[in-house]
């Protein structure tokens, strides 16, 4: 393995070779020569699902080569762009992923848009197996009038904005209104509420983007309502995030006791995790918090959005109309039924946090538009030998890192079983990255390697240091590429 690095190094130094062919040798050819006899697997998507699947595949057999393709120049997906800036310990998983990225039998290819720069069929020809781990980049829409008005954002975009996702850098949310309403009560909704209300001191040393930090420092938002269709016993967030809301400095909880009727009596029959979560909520209702607190937040239950209201000029959102529900059934499967009553809430910022959604990547891949996933049996894509999936594109966009980890391990296990059972023809030699890199070059596409991502990483940490922050993320893809290939 040292030999390969030496070879790569000396290839780079040979003068007279054109830069293009020098690159080819370094980026695809040399590694291809070293491990020509083993299975080659391609993973589409460089987030947690992709890296965890890669990790397991590399561990299971000593001769498998795994290549990860990612559309952005930078890896790690939602760990980088989804996890809140004030949850840095959750991002420790990047250390595990980095070990995978640096593994001698793994190569990362950023800046490659699968579906546009290269097709799934081309990947299937170059590899023994292809795993789709490209997650959920779309979002579920509320489907109500006024949803497109200025002032209404999807949580996905809002989170992408404060986390430096390049496509959200021009979001410019207007934070000059007192009340913000968030639709949805999962962890993402609570993250958004917390970031809106957290004191700037809590955020200023994190990796939140500088422009978001400055916007939040000047924010006039003082009240955040987190609205859900059903009741307190159906809330989707987990206790850690609720605890963080309750403990936010200079804020108080503003709940409606009416929403909690009958809850205390139901506590004793609840399974422990749900019981603890509900008890903490009840405590917040009872204690309320510091009356002198400048900011407040609260849950509003049994309410569904039916219309975004615009001001007199019709130019932007100034409120939201909610329909009041009643609950049929109980427990996790309780349903919200309309009562016909309506309620209007004045607000200038509306964030819809009702779920992410996967989109089809390539016409050659089966896709279930109703469930917005790739139809599969335990990770084996339906009717398509050699094609697998892991993560949110396989199960739907819910779950924390632990869920995706277990899911990716399951897909890797199934793939390895298929290799060992002869369901994948490993006797055929596949060219892997060597062929794909050459193909991409003819299309004017150049990949970012893991070692080149590490240059971007170093640049971000350096920029952060001068601002007293963990890192200052680059927001512009062209800037990232310039540093990667410098």
């Amino acid at each position, binding site marked *: 393995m040292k030999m390969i690095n030496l070879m790569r190094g000396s290839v780079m130094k040979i003068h007279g070779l054109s830069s293009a062919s020098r690159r080819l040798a370094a980026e695809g050819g040399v590694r291809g020569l070293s491990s020509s006899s083993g299975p080659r697997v391609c993973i589409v998507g460089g987030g947690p699902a992709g890296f965890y699947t890669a990790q397991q595949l590399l561990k299971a057999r000593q001769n498998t080569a795994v290549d990860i393709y990612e559309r952005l120049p930078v890896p790690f997906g939602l760990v980088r762009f989804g996890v809140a800036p004030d949850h840095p310990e959750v991002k420790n998983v990047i250390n595990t992923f980095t070990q995978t990225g640096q593994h001698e039998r793994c190569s990362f290819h950023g800046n490659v848009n699968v579906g546009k720069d290269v097709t799934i069929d081309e990947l299937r020809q170059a590899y023994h197996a292809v795993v789709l781990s490209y997650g959920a980049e779309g979002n579920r829409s509320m489907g109500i009038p006024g949803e497109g008005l200025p002032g209404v954002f999807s949580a996905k975009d809002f989170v992408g904005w404060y986390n430096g996702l390049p496509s959200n850098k021009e979001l410019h949310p207007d934070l000059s209104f007192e009340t913000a309403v968030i639709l949805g009560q999962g962890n993402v909704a609570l993250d958004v509420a917390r970031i809106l209300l957290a004191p700037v001191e809590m955020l200023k040393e994190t990796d939140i983007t500088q422009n978001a930090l400055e916007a939040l420092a000047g924010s006039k938002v003082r009240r955040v309502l987190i609205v859900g269709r059903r009741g307190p016993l159906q809330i989707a967030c987990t206790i850690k995030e609720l605890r963080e809301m309750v403990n936010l400095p200079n804020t108080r909880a503003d709940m409606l006791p009416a929403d909690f009727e009958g809850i205390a009596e139901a506590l004793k029959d609840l399974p*422990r995790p749900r019981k603890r979560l509900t008890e903490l909520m009840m405590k917040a209702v009872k204690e309320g918090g510091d009356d002198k607190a400048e900011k407040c937040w609260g849950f509003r239950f049994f309410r569904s959005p039916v219309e975004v209201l615009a001001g007199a000029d019709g130019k932007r959102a100034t409120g939201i109309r909610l329909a009041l529900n009643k609950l049929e059934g109980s427990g996790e499967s309780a349903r919200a039924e309309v009562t016909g009553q309506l309620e209007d809430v004045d607000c200038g910022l509306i964030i819809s946090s009702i779920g992410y959604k996967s989109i089809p990547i390539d016409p050659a891949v089966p896709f279930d538009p109703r469930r917005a996933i790739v139809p599969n049996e335990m990770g084996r894509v339906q009717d398509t030998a050699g094609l697998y999936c892991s993560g949110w594109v396989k199960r739907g966009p819910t779950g924390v890192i*632990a869920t995706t980890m277990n899911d990716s391990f399951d897909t890797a296990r199934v793939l390895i079983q298929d290799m060992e059972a002869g369901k994948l023809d490993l006797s055929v030699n596949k060219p892997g990255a060597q062929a794909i890199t050459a193909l991409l070059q003819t299309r004017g596409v150049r990949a970012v390697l893991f070692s080149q991502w590490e240059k971007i990483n170093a640049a971000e940490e350096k920029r952060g240091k001068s601002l007293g922050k963990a890192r200052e993320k680059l927001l512009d893809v062209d800037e990232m590429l310039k540093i990667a290939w410098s």
Partner: protein
Amino acid sequence: MAASAAVRSAVSLTQRFVRVSPDCSICPLYRLNACTGAIDGFTAPNRRLRTSIGVCQSADSSSPEEDERVVNVVFIDRSGQRIPVEARVGDNALHLAHKHGIELEGACEASLACSTCHVYVSSKHYEKLPEPEER
């Protein structure tokens, strides 16, 4: 991931329940038909679990102030193999496993931030634990 259920540690259990919705399908005890119904322990209220934040941040049992009492711990991996190890009171169960080459994922590296490593305690032993603190 729930191999820690087999860890017989003494007084101070060092991992706090983060978000526990027992998923039996991933538990090695279940797969080995060795599950004693640890779920029962969940219905017991008012138990104290010392969080491991302080312990994690100090070196594992190498500082002189640490309790020197030895605890015999047996890890049972997913193939059923028993791996006995020696630990000290106050040791972090995840770090202990890793020190002995036992495969347990810990995405947040034992920061109590992610729930990839978690513990199921059998009801019999759950009774002996102090009350969990809401922190």
